[in-house]
C-alpha cells in the first residue's frame, strides 16, 4: 500500500471511529464491566461507584457537614465530580459523549436502531426541548431525598448501577431490572432519551456545559444549509441555525462536524464564535 493510500486508510478508520470517540467509549465501557465483575465477585476495593461523578454530588453535603461520606461513596467521588465539572467548563459535556459507559450503551442502542431501520424516532423539537427540562427537578428531588434520608436512593433506579452490577448491587429492587429494560427499549425508540430527559448528572453538568469554552462554530458563508448537522445531532440541537453551539445540552460529540459535507463549515473552536 502506497504511503498516500495508507494515510487515507488511516484517516478513514479514524473518522469511522468517530475520531477516537467510539474507542474512548469502548475503553471506559470495558473498564467499567471489568470493575463491575470484580465488585460482584467480592474483590476488596472494587466498586463501580468509586468513579461516578454524581456520587460526588450526593455525598458532598454530608461530607461537608462532617457526618461522613454516604454509604459506600468516598472523597474520590467528590474529586471525580470536581474534575469532570472543570473538564466540562472547558470542553462542554464531553463526559457524556466520550466517557459515560451508560451513555455509550444507549448511544450504540440508538445506532443499532437506525441501522435496523426500525426505531430511532426523531421527536419534534418543541416536545424534545420540553422533555429535557424534566431532568432538572428530578435531579433536585434525588439530591434532597438523598441528603434527608442519608441513603443513596438513586441506586434503585440508576441504570448505570443496575446494569454494571448485573442487578446484584445493594438496594436493587425486584423492579430495578425492569426499569433498566424500559430505559433501553425507550432508548431504542428515542435515542439517548434517558441522557436527555432523566439523567441527574447531565442536569448537574448542564450549567457548566453552557459556559464551556470549546464549542462547535459554524461558518455561515461556507455552510450550504443542507441540514446534515441537524440530522446528525442526537441531542436535538439545531446546529444549522446557530453561529456557535452554546447549548447546555451539547456534548461535543462532534457528529455534526463529522457528517458535514462542506469542509470548514463546522469546526471545534476555543473562544471565538462562528460567522
Amino acid at each position, binding site marked *: 500500500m502506497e504511503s498516500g493510500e495508507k494515510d487515507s486508510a488511516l484517516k478513514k478508520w479514524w473518522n469511522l471511529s468517530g475520531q*477516537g470517540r467510539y474507542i474512548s467509549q469502548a475503553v471506559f465501557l470495558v473498564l467499567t464491566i471489568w470493575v463491575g465483575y470484580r465488585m460482584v465477585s467480592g474483590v476488596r476495593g472494587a466498586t463501580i461507584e468509586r468513579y461516578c461523578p454524581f456520587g460526588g454530588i450526593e455525598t458532598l453535603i454530608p461530607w461537608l457537614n462532617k457526618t461522613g461520606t454516604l454509604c459506600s461513596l468516598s472523597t474520590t*467521588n467528590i474529586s471525580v465530580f470536581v474534575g469532570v465539572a472543570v473538564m466540562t467548563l472547558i470542553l462542554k459535556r464531553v463526559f457524556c459523549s*466520550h466517557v459515560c459507559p451508560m451513555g455509550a450503551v444507549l448511544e450504540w442502542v440508538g445506532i443499532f436502531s437506525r441501522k435496523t431501520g426500525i426505531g430511532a424516532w426523531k421527536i419534534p423539537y418543541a416536545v424534545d426541548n420540553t422533555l429535557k427540562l424534566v431532568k432538572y427537578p428530578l435531579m433536585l428531588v434525588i439530591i434532597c431525598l438523598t441528603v434527608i434520608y442519608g441513603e443513596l436512593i438513586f441506586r434503585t433506579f440508576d441504570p448505570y448501577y443496575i446494569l454494571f452490577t448485573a442487578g446484584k448491587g445493594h438496594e436493587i429492587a425486584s423492579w430495578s431490572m425492569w426499569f433498566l429494560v424500559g430505559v433501553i427499549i425507550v432508548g431504542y425508540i428515542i435515542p439517548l432519551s434517558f441522557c436527555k430527559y432523566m439523567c441527574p448528572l447531565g442536569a448537574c453538568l448542564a450549567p457548566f456545559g453552557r459556559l464551556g469554552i470549546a464549542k462547535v462554530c459554524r461558518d455561515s458563508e461556507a455552510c450550504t444549509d443542507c441540514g446534515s448537522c441537524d440530522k446528525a445531532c442526537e441531542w436535538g440541537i439545531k446546529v444549522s441555525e446557530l453561529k456557535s453551539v452554546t447549548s447546555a445540552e451539547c456534548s461535543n460529540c462532534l457528529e455534526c462536524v463529522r457528517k458535514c459535507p462542506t469542509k470548514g463549515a463546522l469546526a471545534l473552536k476555543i473562544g471565538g464564535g462562528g460567522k
Partner: protein
Amino acid sequence: MKIPSGILAPLVVIIFSVVIFSGSSYELPSTQKSFSEATSPTKTVKMDVEGLRCRGTANFFNGKLQGVAGIISVSTFVQDRSAKIEYDPAVTAPEKIKAIIEKPVKLKSGKVVQPFTVTKID
C-alpha cells in the same frame, strides 16, 4: 482558535484518567473521629477490615473503639475497607486493638455475631 477534532477523544481520555488516578491516590477518610488528646508520642496503624462497607458500619466501627484506653483517633476508608487508628503505644498495641474490633456483639434478637474481621495490619 480552531482545535483539530481528532485530538478531543485522546484529550478526554487523558484528562479523565488523571482525574481518576489523582482522586483515588489522595482519598480523604469516609469518617474521622478523635476520642482524646495525645499526651505522649503516638503511633498510627493501618488495618484492612472486612465488614466495613458503608457509613453505617463505619459509625458502628468508631463506636466500638470509642472509650477504649489508648485510642486517640480513628479514620475509616469505606471503599478500601480499611481504617487508620492513632494510638498511644504506652497504653495499647495493634493486637489488643484488633481483639477489640473483632469482639462479637449480641444483637437484640439474641444472636451473637462478629461484625468485623481484621485481615491485615500494616
